[in-house]
């Protein structure tokens, strides 16, 4: 499949999917999921975006497509009415809905052009009328509002703000600020390697508390391997990494400084 040299900018994963469907002149109700998934993956491979939020949305759709692809290979599921369920049905509905609003947005755009040709006029009230402010009936305005209720409202606003903060990401943010000390980690791992001749990466991690600790520890392991202080092996993907320590090798002092750059 040929990829256009200049990639179009898409509004989102659904927009990209619709583009592929149009381009391939496919019936939206009968999407050849294998072809479309391949093309979709090809596109996002070419996408050059630094924005992880945007990228994750495209990747989520890729996962959905792959999921549908898998389900298409399996025997069809049957729903309560005994009908076969098309794994693509939900996606088709989403695409149709999105397409509808996208189409309406073009309609609105046309209308905006016409409506933009109408001019209005600022108010030209006599100054004494313009300056007049009708008195506010505060009793009527307040109704059954009172301080206790205003306080309830404030609490719920603050609670909503807390809700919006994703505790996982926000913790991650905090960790980035109080950096894990690379020197200390280095010394820690080195001492651990000296004390244990052979040990698993997971065992080492049991002594670590945060995600940043884990990442830094992993970097330290890589460094130590580079200088020959340790050897590592892993039987299979996701197996524990087995680390063997070479007691005779001394870690050069300047390595500490070097490691800090990372």
């Amino acid at each position, binding site marked *: 499949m040929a990829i256009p040299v200049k990639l179009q900018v898409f*509004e989102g994963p659904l927009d990209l999917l619709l583009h592929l469907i149009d381009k391939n002149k496919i019936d939206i109700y009968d999407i050849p999921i294998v072809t479309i998934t391949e093309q979709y993956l090809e596109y996002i491979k070419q996408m050059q975006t630094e924005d992880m939020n945007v990228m994750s949305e495209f990747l989520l759709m890729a996962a959905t497509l792959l999921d549908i692809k898998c389900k298409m290979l399996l025997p069809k599921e049957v729903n309560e009415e005994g009908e076969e369920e098309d794994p693509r049905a939900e996606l088709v509905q989403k695409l149709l809905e*999105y397409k509808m*609003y996208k189409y*309406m947005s073009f*309609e609105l755009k046309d209308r*905006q052009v016409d*409506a933009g040709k*109408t001019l209005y006029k600022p108010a030209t009230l006599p100054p004494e009328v313009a300056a007049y402010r009708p008195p506010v009936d505060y009793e009527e305005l307040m109704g059954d509002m009172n301080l206790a209720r205003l306080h309830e409202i404030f609490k719920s606003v603050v609670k*909503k703000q807390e809700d919006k903060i994703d505790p996982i990401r926000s913790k991650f943010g905090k960790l980035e600020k109080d950096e894990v000390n690379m020197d200390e980690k280095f010394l820690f791992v080195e001492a651990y390697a000296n004390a244990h001749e052979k040990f698993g990466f997971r065992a080492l991690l049991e002594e670590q508390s945060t995600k940043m600790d884990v990442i830094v520890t992993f970097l330290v392991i890589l460094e130590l391997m580079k200088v020959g202080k340790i050897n590592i092996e892993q039987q299979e993907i996701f197996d524990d990494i087995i680390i063997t320590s070479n007691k005779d090798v001394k870690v050069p002092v300047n390595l500490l400084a070097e490691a800090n750059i990372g």
Partner: protein
Amino acid sequence: MERAKQEAVIEAILFTMGESVELSKLAEVIEEDKKNTKAIIEEMMERYGEENRGVSIIELDGAYQMCTRGELYEYLIKVAKSPRKYVLTDTVLETLSIIAYKQPVTRLEIEKIRGVSCDHAVNRLIELDLIKELGRLDAPGRPLLFGTTEQFLRSFGVKSLEDLPELNPEQLEDFKEQAEEEIQLKLDV
């Protein structure tokens, strides 16, 4: 109040205020019920059109406003300042069309339809006074509900929400087929 005077009063009020005036306020001033007032205004709107007047009256969700006739734009622009034009990006327009047709609607619902986050677009639309908060949904987290404003109706030449271009998925398919046929025709020629 005699009819001729009622019309003169309505014209004078709409001219002076410049902005939209509620039907109920106009009715009060011309000492008429709302139904009759509406009938009078609609007759005026029609007459303005027939007489090819320079101004016309538009309806905005139960309120009325006086404005210039669109066809005269090219002449007016030679004297009058052109209204501030802002270009809405596709993202913003898509978000706006979802809000217009689904209101009241939460951010989450918009994001579900578009498949991407809409925070930026929603904030921009509020800034442009095209949408506003309508309150909060009575659901966990009490999310904000959004809907369109009077400025939206004005900017898009829509009388009321019922006057929005029809939304019909089947029709959409028809349009598409038509468009395809048209292209085919051109190619065949």
